[in-house]
């Protein structure tokens, strides 16, 4: 039997050379006459070890990493195909401490399975949640999801079960499940990782959402920046259709659900659910005023569930193991697990799924291992470009929706971006305004005009033009944007700006004065 060697197809691994490593291993194996099957799997999310190559051995899967094409000869010399010793040897994959200490519920198969093998998925308890759901009424499914305490993982944190119930009760000939996979927040890559590494769990979650609400058609709206995720999702949908998991007769139940992938076109604002729906309808991605809620009048004016990728991917395990099992993880009103994405200037960047409640300090210092540059941490931005910057003084904040809100922050899609002490917080505040100006859909004035005025105010501050007045103006402007914008783009841009201003006031001193003082 051939030896299985795993090399991730994950974009992060490929960006670090996984494609070349995979073909180098295949070539060398064929030269050496070794019977090797290279499987392209998802990533386990330990990006400092990527490309991480695994070999199936009698003692389990063992890992080597980070592997470059230059290492291949030495790996073969060290007999890595039987798990031989080498300086890149990491031991059994499942024993790597970063992985072992996680509570992987949503990402339980990511990295383990061949992403487009339904047999692999089934062999690892895949589709059990769906099979259970098929034996339940729509009300029972909604109740399980509500009882699990699952809240929208896209950032808003709205209870998923309540949203589903609204759609379930809505009248309509055609209802839709729309998966918001428009993951545009810097520092986040959980959606990409799971779509590339375990696409069937998203398909399963969407089918269950369809059964619960009476929707028979689903769409995954994702980014043009994610070509691999699109390819893997499309292939998995084909496989699911051919196997009767999708289609008119889901697993022989007589119930119908089918889905397709739609590609965005480079507009950040389309991650906002109403502008996403407009985009899917073929319109400009401008935000719609709410009400009406998308749950009642969504895609093409019909009742629509719009859920984030991770919310939908968390559903199968809830239906498989029960609401209580999921609910037992977490703290306070933040139940279950959250895939934290550690990124930026950090030694051990990657994805870490765990129950809510770790402190920010534990995430950055223990899991992340501090900065990649070796310099002291100065600031951490949590929740993407609309999230607040946290100083070290707030590292005791537990990872929880409410705890972050109490400290004028948000967990958003759970991306954590680390900056060392070379970061200039006034520049970061300006960037937040600039980004909002570039990506604003233009519908509401506070966002469209406010962001442009915001960059101008910061520029004046930098030049030392009446600094006290500019700071007052900036506060005032942020207040207007926060309470006057239609959606989170304009409404949350003040978070990074004000947090930078509040926690790092020294960085906002006029530069001209600094020079004069020196």
């Amino acid at each position, binding site marked *: 039997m051939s030896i299985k060697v795993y090399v991730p197809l994950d*974009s*992060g691994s*490929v*960006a*670090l050379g996984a494609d070349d490593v995979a073909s180098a291993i295949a070539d060398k194996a064929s030269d050496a006459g070794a019977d090797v099957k290279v499987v392209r799997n998802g990533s386990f*999310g330990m*990006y400092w070890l*990527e490309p991480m190559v695994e070999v199936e051995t009698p003692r389990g899967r063992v890992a080597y990493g980070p592997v470059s094409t230059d290492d291949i000869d030495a790996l073969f010399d060290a007999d890595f195909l039987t798990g031989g010793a080498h300086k890149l040897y990491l031991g059994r994959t499942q024993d790597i401490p970063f992985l072992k200490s996680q509570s992987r519920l949503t990402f339980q198969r990511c990295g383990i399975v061949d992403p487009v093998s339904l047999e692999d998925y089934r062999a690892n308890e895949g589709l059990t949640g769906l099979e259970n759901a098929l034996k339940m009424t729509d009300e029972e499914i909604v109740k399980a999801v509500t009882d699990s305490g699952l809240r929208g993982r896209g950032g808003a944190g709205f209870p998923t079960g309540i949203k589903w119930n609204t759609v379930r009760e809505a009248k309509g000939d055609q209802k839709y499940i729309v998966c918001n996979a428009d*993951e*545009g*927040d*810097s*520092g*986040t*890559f959980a959606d*990409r990782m799971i779509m590339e590494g375990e696409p069937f769990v998203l398909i399963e979650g969407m089918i269950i959402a369809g059964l619960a609400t009476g929707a028979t*058609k689903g769409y995954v709206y994702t*980014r*043009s*920046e*994610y*070509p691999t995720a699109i390819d893997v999702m499309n292939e998995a949908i084909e496989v699911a259709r051919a196997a009767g998991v999708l289609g008119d007769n889901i697993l022989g139940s007589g119930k119908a659900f089918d889905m397709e992938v*739609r*590609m*965005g*076109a*480079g*507009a950040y604002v389309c991650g906002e659910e109403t502008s996403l729906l407009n*985009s*899917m*309808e*073929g*319109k*400009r*991605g401008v935000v719609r005023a709410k009400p009406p809620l998308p749950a009642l009048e969504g*895609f*093409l004016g019909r009742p629509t569930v719009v859920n984030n990728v991770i919310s939908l991917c968390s559903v199968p395990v809830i239906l498989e193991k029960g609401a209580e099992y999921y609910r037992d993880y977490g703290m306070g009103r933040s139940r279950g697990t959250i895939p934290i*994405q550690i*990124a*930026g*200037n*950090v030694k051990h*960047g*990657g*994805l870490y799924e765990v129950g809510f409640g770790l402190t920010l300090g534990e995430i950055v210092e223990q899991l992340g291992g501090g900065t*990649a540059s070796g310099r002291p941490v100065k600031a951490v*931005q949590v929740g993407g*470009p609309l999230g607040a910057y946290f100083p070290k003084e707030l590292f005791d904040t537990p990872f929880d929706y409410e705890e972050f809100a109490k400290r004028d922050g948000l967990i958003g899609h759970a*991306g954590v*971006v*680390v*900056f*060392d002490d070379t*970061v200039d917080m006034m520049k*970061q505040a300006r*960037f937040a305004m600039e*980004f909002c100006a*570039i*990506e604003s*859909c233009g519908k509401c004035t506070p966002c469209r005009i406010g962001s442009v005025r915001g960059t101008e105010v910061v520029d004046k501050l930098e030049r030392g033009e009446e600094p006290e007045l500019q700071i007052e103006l900036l506060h005032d402007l942020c207040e207007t944007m926060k309470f006057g914008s239609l959606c989170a783009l304009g409404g949350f841009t003040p978070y990074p700006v004000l947090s930078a201003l509040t926690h790092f006031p020294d960085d906002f001193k006029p530069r001209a004065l600094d020079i004069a003082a020196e």
Partner: protein
Amino acid sequence: MPDTVQNKQEFDNMLEREACMSETTEDQNVRVAAICDRLITLEGPLLPILHEVQEEFGHIPDGALQTIAKKLNLSRAEVHGVASFYHDFREEKAGKHVIKICRAEACQAMGADALGDEIRRHLKVDWSQTTADHKITLEPVFCLGLCACAPAAMVDGKVVGRVSADRILEKVGS
């Protein structure tokens, strides 16, 4: 009358050029219409159509807007409004190579600003511009989802992480 002969020659050349051009436009219309016909049954077909048109021609040709509008029973202005809203759709063809550099926060934390400056200086272009020899187009991108291997870029559709200016320029032979 040599003068007239020369004029006639020019006139013929002009006719030939026009015939050639209208043939190109004709051909373009047929191809755009075929894309529309193939995708029109989708729910919300406009974005998929624009993506395919760009895939086919390398940009959204001006003439395509009218064809799409007619097929979808929209006004040309509506189609133009949509095409111009999204960063992905180009009015002009890109250079032979396209470099997209991530300018978002995680990459900033790892020196993306300096990387962008160096590339711009070397290529003598600003963001969203193409070099004078039409060889390289430089575009900003806000997040490629490679935030744990920053700074990141996409060169001709291929992702690269922990990248330097030299490596990017080497990939496009500059």
